[in-house]
């Protein structure tokens, strides 16, 4: 009965990226194909192993035959596609997107954003100081999760993680329209009075840090959050027999954040409250 697992066999497709022929397995997105070919596109609302949100439009590329720019994170590679990732048009589009985003949303905790702003020569300040901006106080209504509307892109990844794509709790949803839209819970209640089960999966998928764990928020507020100094170790949750993998982020010998590796065969990037927050009990350093 011994078998060797080969995975699902997938056909390889031929396409060209910036004039170079490449092969990509059937079903991959253009973004994946680009990354496999060593081209790193800017991509904000894209989260590994999740359904693409296609909300930020930073990852746009040109596809021959298509009039509009195409979001690489959601478009699947097709045979014979001729894709241009770095044209005048894509650069221009990305620059505008960065300027609009950075002028309206607080991107101070968004990884990679400063480099992209520089790379594309974006000037978020060119709309003047009175450009419309979401200014909201952080919502701290419980000991575990913090919500900062002012940093939210409204990409909806958290809503999906909370709902049918992961938790199936459906505590979070996008309400309102246009600029006034925001992510929240029913009746704008405190999180503790909502359906939220505090799994924290929304934090893992949020690209901007609009959702964060309290321990990170507190350290950031105190000015002592030091990501480069953190050690990152993957281990297994100690709370129940499901055995989810956990990635522990450790600063000064304290676990300051727990994330879930998206490629874990057990948890697929999800956790529950016990895995996400149940580590504090071992931390007796005094």
């Amino acid at each position: 009965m011994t078998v060797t697992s080969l995975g699902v066999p997938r056909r390889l497709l031929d396409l060209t990226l910036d004039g170079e022929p490449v092969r990509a397995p059937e079903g991959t997105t253009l973004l994946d194909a680009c990354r496999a070919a060593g081209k790193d596109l800017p991509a904000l609302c894209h989260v590994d192993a999740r359904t693409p949100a296609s909300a930020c439009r930073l990852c746009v590329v040109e596809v021959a035959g298509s009039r509009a720019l195409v979001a690489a994170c959601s478009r699947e590679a097709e045979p014979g596609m001729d894709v241009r990732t770095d044209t005048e048009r894509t650069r221009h589009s990305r620059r505008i997107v960065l300027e609009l985003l950075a002028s309206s949303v607080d991107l101070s905790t968004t990884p990679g954003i400063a480099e992209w702003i520089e790379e594309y020569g974006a000037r978020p300040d060119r709309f003047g100081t009175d450009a419309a901006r979401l200014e909201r106080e952080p919502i701290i209504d419980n000991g575990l999760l913090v919500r900062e509307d002012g940093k939210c892109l409204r990409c909806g990844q958290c809503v999906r993680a909370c709902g049918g794509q992961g938790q199936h709790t459906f505590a979070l949803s996008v309400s309102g329209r246009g600029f006034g839209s925001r992510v929240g819970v029913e009746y704008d209640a405190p999180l503790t009075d909502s359906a939220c089960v505090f799994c924290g999966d929304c934090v893992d998928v949020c690209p901007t840090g609009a959702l964060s764990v309290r321990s990170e928020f507190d350290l950031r507020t105190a000015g002592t959050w030091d990501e480069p100094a953190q050690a990152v170790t993957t281990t297994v949750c100690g709370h129940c027999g499901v055995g989810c993998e956990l990635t522990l982020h450790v600063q000064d010998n304290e676990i300051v954040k727990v994330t879930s590796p998206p490629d874990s065969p057990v948890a697929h990037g999800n956790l529950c409250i016990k895995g996400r927050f149940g580590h504090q009990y071992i931390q007796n350093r005094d």
Partner: protein
Amino acid sequence: MNRDARGGNPRLTHPLVRDGRDEPLRRASWDEALDRAARGLRRGRGAFGMLACARATNETNYLAQKFARVVMGTNNVDSVDRRSHAASVAGLAAVFGSGGGTSSYGEVEHTDVVVMWGSNARVAHPVFFQRVLKGVHGGARLYAVDPRRASTAEWAEGWLGLNVGTDIALAHAIGREIIQAGLANEAFVERATSGFEEYRALVEPWTLSLAQKVTGVPAPAIRELAHAYARAERAQICWTLGVTDHHNGTAVVRALIDLALLTGHVGREGSGLQPLCGRNNVQGAVDMGAVPHRLPGFQDVLDPDARLRFESAWDTALPPHYGLNLAEMFEEMETGGVRAVHCLGENPAPSEARRLKALDFLVVQDMFRTSTAELADVVLPATAGWAESEGTTTNSERRVQRVRKAVEPPGEARDDIDILCDLARRLGHPWEYAGAEAVWNEVRSVSPDHYGMTYRRLEAEKGLQWPCPTTDTVEPPYLHGRLWADDPALRGRRAPFGLVRHVPPVDLTDERFPIRLTTGRRLDSSNSAGQQGGSPRRGEFVELCPEDAERYGVVVGEKVQITSRHGSVVVSVWIDTALRPGLAFTTLRLPDHNDTDQPTSAARCPIAGTAEYKATAIRIDKLPLVTYVG
């Protein structure tokens, strides 16, 4: 924040010893503490018991059982996991030879019927339940069998709200219905099982109408589940504490396995039996032989070939009989059969304090200064298996995964492996392991099921499931495919039907104790495992249905006294519409919160020694009004 929620115990940062019976614990050096531990254990040889830990790594559990067997010369080793898994292991091992769930998590996403039996997985095992929900989205039909209409049932096509303790009656009725309707998989039964005729006779009296009377589940609902399960191309039964915490937990597990044998829902992709463990390494503790009757890798202590292999690998003579299980060890503490105990990472004192006090010598090796530590002669501060040590743990789908050291332990706390080796050396066994990997390689050399799992492979392949006999292949994700083989020689031992009888709960309700109290978990209470200070939810409550709350005239938040035949405790009231009249629920571990030594019913599963936590008869009394003066 630095407390263990098991009772707010602080972390241990240095060894402690006691200079005399009535002296307090005092700080000691490692050398002094280990010398004393060695001295005490040496004297206790011949009456020793090792309590291993369902939270420690496989490597630690392996060394703990080896310590008992080689250094102390006894098979008296068991893990304090009796609440959650022993019954499953005993039941599965009796039928199939190895005590692990037969399916993998992934299969639940691609099956046709899922029966969650006595398992509120939505709350107790949330990440597993997400995968069940994927299956449901893919078209699987979900049934929940649970006295409470808990949140798992909200996702189910059918909820079978049985009376507490009537699981066997319900299972037998389902089995009878399957046979009567001609839905049994006769070819499978004929080729791969034994005892079918006896089983048929056993379940024959369990008509739908009798079952309805006994279990409280309407006959049509029982019939529907029976037909859905038996007709499905693939089907899974998953269970948790709701099944195994009964006084006859192993019997309930056997009754569920019977259904799989009857329908051939085992040994095929998507069809199987999936117990879910409460503790992170319950499975691993058993696999590593930290049980009185099995050596590492499920090898029987009495099997001559296995004995030979271990006796030569360990250069020792193994005691030629099974050791005492947990329940028996505690009993023998009273009669003098067990005089010295090494307790590793568990806290039995809240329910067993009296017996532990009767010991001549107690060593506690733990992260926390627990109430068991308070009774010890020597206390050795240890590390957290999952974040402060290297090693592996094994989850409910038999997947061995690497745990890694991410933080330094506090103070002088030391790795479990180092502690056990140091102690063994002091007792004349020169144990030297270069680290967890060296221990693991020894496990691989003595357990064929683990042989193929090198650390390097575990890392590269993100864990591997046992059995894994070779270093370059993987086995199918499900167990016991052999039962379907055409060649009888490959098919191997037949899987016997379990002939188990319905026995009503020991602790009967009557006029004095009219309410059935059942226990379980809420999402943010992880059994007695640690919880953070900042938990966003309410604390401990006794939950009643709205009707009962009205009957007793109590409201949410009111403190009441709940009294069983064994003790009483004061808690606040919560109202939960998932409950039915006559049924109360609590996450309280009554023994942890009570002064008496034995507050829950003392009946134990005769096979696995699981104490009955699921069905206590209680009464609820309003507290007298207190007037505060001043």
